[in-house]
């Protein structure tokens, strides 16, 4: 077993709104190993994007990390806890973009419309120059430009030399997302966070982008944290899955185990609601009973218990189940698999 490059431990991010406290992330733990693709899946509002912003410490106020650890393993030496670093400090800024890079959700709005895309990539290269190239001559403008052209070529953008001078609104959705990937990869990060990178593009482009990410991941051995609400995408991309619901991890494990032997009732319900080729036509698609509670009206106990078909009366509504190992790689936070804990007073 390798040392994980990233270890998130009982992370809590709360939003202090005038209307009340929103526990967007409330005790999330998972690990990312070097070169591994981890999929984070969940409905909208389950806290997956906030978790990613918390890793980079770019959660916007009134949100704040209130607990937990984010341990990042540097190339040399011990792991550092990112939550202990100042969000505006130089140490953390040296990690953002250089060691942990982000591919944001909306490529359309994620580039500045008044700077050419090339310029924005060159900025990243120049900013972290001493990290991706500790020694050697200072980066010249011409060199940065030619590196950007190479990056564009490596993500499959045709006519790269012309395209780097384009503005984001002059590019198609697919090209924009490729340019974004080029920017994220520019400083050769060890971890790539892809926040629903294919939500805003059409299905054909989606397939191309996923292939590209997979190829790049194999080439460079970058670890990818892949956020999506699309279980099909997870099955294609990830080797390890984390299932989130209302700011907590319901279940996690290797992709084969989660898909073929889901343990948590939420995961089972989620998988059942995928349309299948094997059911007779005109069958109603199973849905999860009830709806996601209002962020301010979080249920007590296990957050899923009001919608859970297997909820244990008097237990699930009272106490929060901890994440416990079940199979060889699988973990679930559910009292069904933890009768001892459930029967404790």
């Amino acid at each position, binding site marked *: 077993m390798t040392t994980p490059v990233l270890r998130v431990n009982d992370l809590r991010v709360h939003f202090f709104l005038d209307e009340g406290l929103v526990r967007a992330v409330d005790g999330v733990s998972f690990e990312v190993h070097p070169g591994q693709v981890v999929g984070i899946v969940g409905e909208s509002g389950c806290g997956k994007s906030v978790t990613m*912003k918390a890793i*980079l410490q*770019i959660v*916007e106020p009134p949100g704040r990390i209130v607990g937990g650890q984010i341990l990042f393993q540097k190339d040399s030496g011990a792991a550092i806890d990112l939550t202990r670093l100042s969000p*505006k400090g*130089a140490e953390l*800024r*040296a*990690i*953002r*973009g*250089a060691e942990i*890079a*982000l591919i*944001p*959700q*909306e490529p359309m*709005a*994620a*580039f*500045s*419309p*008044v*700077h050419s895309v090339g310029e*924005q990539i060159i*900025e*990243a290269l120049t*900013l*972290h120059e001493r990290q991706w190239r500790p020694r050697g001559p200072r980066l010249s403008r011409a060199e940065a430009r030619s590196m950007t052209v190479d990056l564009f070529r490596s993500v499959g953008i045709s006519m790269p030399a012309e395209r780097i001078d384009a*503005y984001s*609104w*002059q590019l198609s959705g697919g090209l924009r997302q490729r340019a*974004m990937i080029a*920017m994220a990869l520019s400083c050769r990060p060890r971890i790539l966070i892809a926040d629903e990178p294919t939500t805003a593009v059409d299905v054909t482009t989606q397939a191309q982008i996923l292939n590209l990410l997979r190829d790049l991941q194999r080439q460079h051995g970058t670890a990818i944290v892949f956020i999506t609400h699309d279980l099909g995408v997870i099955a294609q991309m990830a080797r390890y899955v984390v299932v989130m619901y209302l700011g907590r991890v319901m279940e996690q494990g290797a992709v084969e185990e989660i898909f073929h032997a889901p343990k948590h009732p939420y995961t089972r319900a989620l998988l059942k609601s995928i349309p299948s080729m094997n059911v007779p036509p005109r069958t109603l698609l199973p849905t999860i009973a009830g709806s996601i509670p209002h962020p301010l009206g979080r249920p007590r106990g296990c957050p899923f218990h009001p919608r859970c078909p297997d909820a244990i009366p008097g237990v699930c509504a009272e106490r929060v189940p901890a994440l416990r190992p079940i199979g060889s790689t699988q973990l679930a936070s559910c009292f069904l698999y933890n009768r001892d804990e459930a029967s404790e007073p």
Partner: protein
Amino acid sequence: MAPMTRYVLKRLVLLPALLFLFSVAVFAIVQAPPGDFLTTYVATLASSGSSISAEQVEALRREYGLDRPIWVQYLKWMENLAKGNLGLSLEYQRPNAELIGERLVLTMVLALLSFVFTWVVAIPAGIYSAMHPRSAIDYALTLVNYVGVATPNFMLALVLMWGAFAYLDMSVTGLFSPDFVEAPWSVARVVDLLKHVWLPAVVLGVAGTARLTRVMRANLLDELNKPYVTTARAKGLSEWRLVVRYPARLALNPLVSTIGWYLPALFSGSLIVATVMNLPNIGPLLLRALINQDMYLAGSILLIYCFLTIVGTLISDILLAWLDPRIRFEEGMR
């Protein structure tokens, strides 16, 4: 042709057409009040006890072309303007160019300085407020801004003049010390001007500064929520650098398009302040020319206003296109 060149050329072509339209409008407005300069002149003379014969009035009327149809008067005016001749002031009996010249320079100096004051103060203040919303300094700036917008500038002028006189024993009226009012331009006179000009520049700029700070704060708050800011932050840029480089730059664009209005607004808005502070700028001159129906003087001043407004708008259009490639391309393609 590059989009930018096309964009500028299109606007330059429009310039003469606009000037023609404005000249017609200006002439119509100056001519609009009943009577003409001579009726006012005769009335003034009569009220001061002296009189003028009907023949003399008729001779003057012919001399100034006041007996000809309006369109002939207009064409004559245009002909003279084309030769660079702004005509003679009926009241002062001096060339209009001479009367306007120095006052125009002083007005522009004042406008430029209060503009610089406004932007240098308002933009950083707006950026700070937006970056620290609901902080103590933000609230303090907001309070100052509301007071600034709500205070009439002539009142501010009076208060400051009184304060300077009562506590600093300084006389701050006018733009020059008594020794330099009539003196020819020299280094010493420029220095004297700079010693006096800052107070009226600040007085004239306060309300604009307050408004601009509010607008900058609101624009930037909108921009700070845009995804490209998250991208820039995730890239590892420092907070100040990323704000100045990305959202502040975008928040500025709508403001740049208002630069063109600044000069004419200050021309007409400074009248009361200029009267209160005894500033030798162009506002009081225009007011007097209009009251006395000194039509060629008033017409010349108004036409210069129009010209400056057009040029100001042209400058802000060019600045905007230079700052925002979306405008450059969209317009250039058409």
